């Protein structure tokens, strides 16, 4: 346990030193405050918009940004140390591969979690000061929690990429492709499937397919509770399928645990 904490501590301070925490927090804060304030500008008004509109916009934003940031933060975590020779050295220490993996996950996951909380939390506070409605805090807490889970899921996926890549540049390419697949291609594919099969795809099947992408699960988690008037596209169809929030969150959690487990297995069998 002490070993895990030592590694986590180092990774967390690396995140502070590289200004990762600062940059991510600022990006999230500026975008979310902007969306909260100017989200309704298109309809001619400036000022605080409704809670569901805000969350809907924030979710569509976060679903692109958070995976990208998590992948960027962690793609070189193992391949970088392998290239530098410190990975081999660390493994001669009284430190197991799983301890190293979990330590890194805690440290870098901590950066993601803290940045998400501070960044999006700022709009929550802004909204709360205006409306004094506890529902705002509740909704945002839920949003921040699920955004953190999304970030952690892509951190785990980044480790997987980092361990199967032989070079840092290949890992960077792999991370970019992964982001492209999950954030864009997957939804386009779903849409194509919907159109191509003449809507013979049942709602249940569609929703089940969406479980294969953590980004979509995150969308479902946050949009399912909202007015469906704020949501359109393929998602609106899926929302009507009844999946409980607990189920959705469990799927998101599985998207953290399963990649981490696979990563741990690959790490164990990796030749050094």
């Amino acid at each position, binding site marked *: 346990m002490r*070993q895990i904490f030592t590694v986590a501590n180092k990774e967390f301070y690396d995140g502070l030193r590289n200004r990762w925490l600062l940059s991510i927090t600022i990006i999230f804060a500026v975008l979310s405050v902007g969306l909260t304030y100017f989200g309704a500008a298109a309809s001619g008004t400036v000022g605080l918009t409704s809670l569901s509109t805000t969350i809907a916009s924030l979710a569509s934003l976060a679903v692109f940004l958070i995976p990208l940031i998590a992948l960027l933060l962690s793609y070189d975590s193992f391949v970088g140390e392998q290239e*530098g020779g410190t990975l081999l050295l660390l493994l001669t220490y009284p430190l197991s591969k799983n301890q190293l993996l979990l330590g890194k996950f805690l440290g870098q996951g901590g950066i993601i979690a803290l940045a998400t909380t501070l960044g999006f939390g700022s709009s929550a506070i802004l909204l709360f000061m205006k409306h004094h409605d506890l529902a705002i805090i509740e909704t945002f807490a839920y949003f921040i929690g699920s955004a953190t889970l999304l970030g952690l899921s892509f951190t785990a996926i980044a480790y997987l990429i980092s361990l199967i890549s032989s070079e840092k540049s290949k890992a960077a390419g792999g991370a970019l492709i992964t982001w492209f697949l999950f954030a864009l291609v997957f939804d386009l594919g779903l849409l194509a499937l919907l159109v191509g099969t003449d809507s013979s795809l049942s709602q249940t099947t569609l929703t089940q397919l969406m479980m294969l992408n953590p980004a979509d699960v995150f969308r479902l988690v946050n949009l399912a509770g909202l007015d469906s008037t704020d949501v359109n596209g393929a998602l609106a169809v899926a929302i009507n399928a009844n999946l409980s929030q607990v189920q959705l969150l469990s799927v998101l959690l599985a998207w953290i645990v399963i990649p981490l487990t696979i990563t741990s297995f690959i790490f164990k069998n990796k030749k050094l």
Partner: protein
Amino acid sequence: MSTKNAVVSLEDVSKHYKELKALSGVNLQLAQGEVLGLFGHNGAGKTTMMKLILGVVSPEFGKVSVMGMQPDDKSAWHMRAKMGYLPENVMFYEQLTGLEVLTYFSKLKGKNKAHAKQLLEQVGISHAQNRPVKTYSKGMRQRLGLAQAFIGEPKLLLLDEPTVGLDPNATAEFYRSVDELKTQGTSVILCSHVLPGVEQHIDRAMIISGGKTLALGTIAQLRSQANLPVKIKHQGLNSDIASDSLLAGFIHEEDSLLVPEHEKINVLRQLLSNQSLTDVAVESANLEQVYQYYLSQKVASSNDVKKDVA
């Protein structure tokens, strides 16, 4: 020496990476406080042997045991705190300071920052402890690596090319710390292909090539096994040496003779009896020559095999 008391014991160990036979049938017993020089050129299997001892890789055949335990086994992890390793090429976290790097590694071995500071002092880079590692010179990085290997007063040290990048002063200092560790009972495996200067500091030498042991023993043993001639330099003798029936056969250069070990004394007596001799110097074969000898033996024997096949 029994296997039980050995700090490191390799019994008929083989390690293969797919087709590549990194090590085959290697035997070694390393006692407490013994310093072993492990020599071989690139790809000879030195690093593989270190990885086996460190427990990072497992052998296909044979048995590796370190301090009585299997190093690749989970139960042996606590023992790793008693081992120090300096890899051949290591780039420490460039953005961290020397002290931060060493504190991180110290903590992983259950030591604290004060221990790290003391080690930086010991290797002579405490003046740069608060500077990022990216500003360090090659020699300073090597010293940082050494400090890392010295964490927690290890009982076993594995050093891969420890003197690369060190200036002569630092090299001498390094060998002094090896001698000191040895007196404290630390066993050391020094891996190198640079040989001058290392002779006085090692108890035994092991020469490997192509994953096989070519020679293992004290330098004196290896020297006598190799049966390399002794070089005798002389001054003041002139052409009369060529007419001497004993000496004529050994003439190497104008002022030197190459003499087999067992003839050394006879030749010296003969030389000393000559009144015109003003100076004489005897040079036994050095480690470098012994090393070259065993490597050339290997090439010769493998050529024989090829001929047989043809």
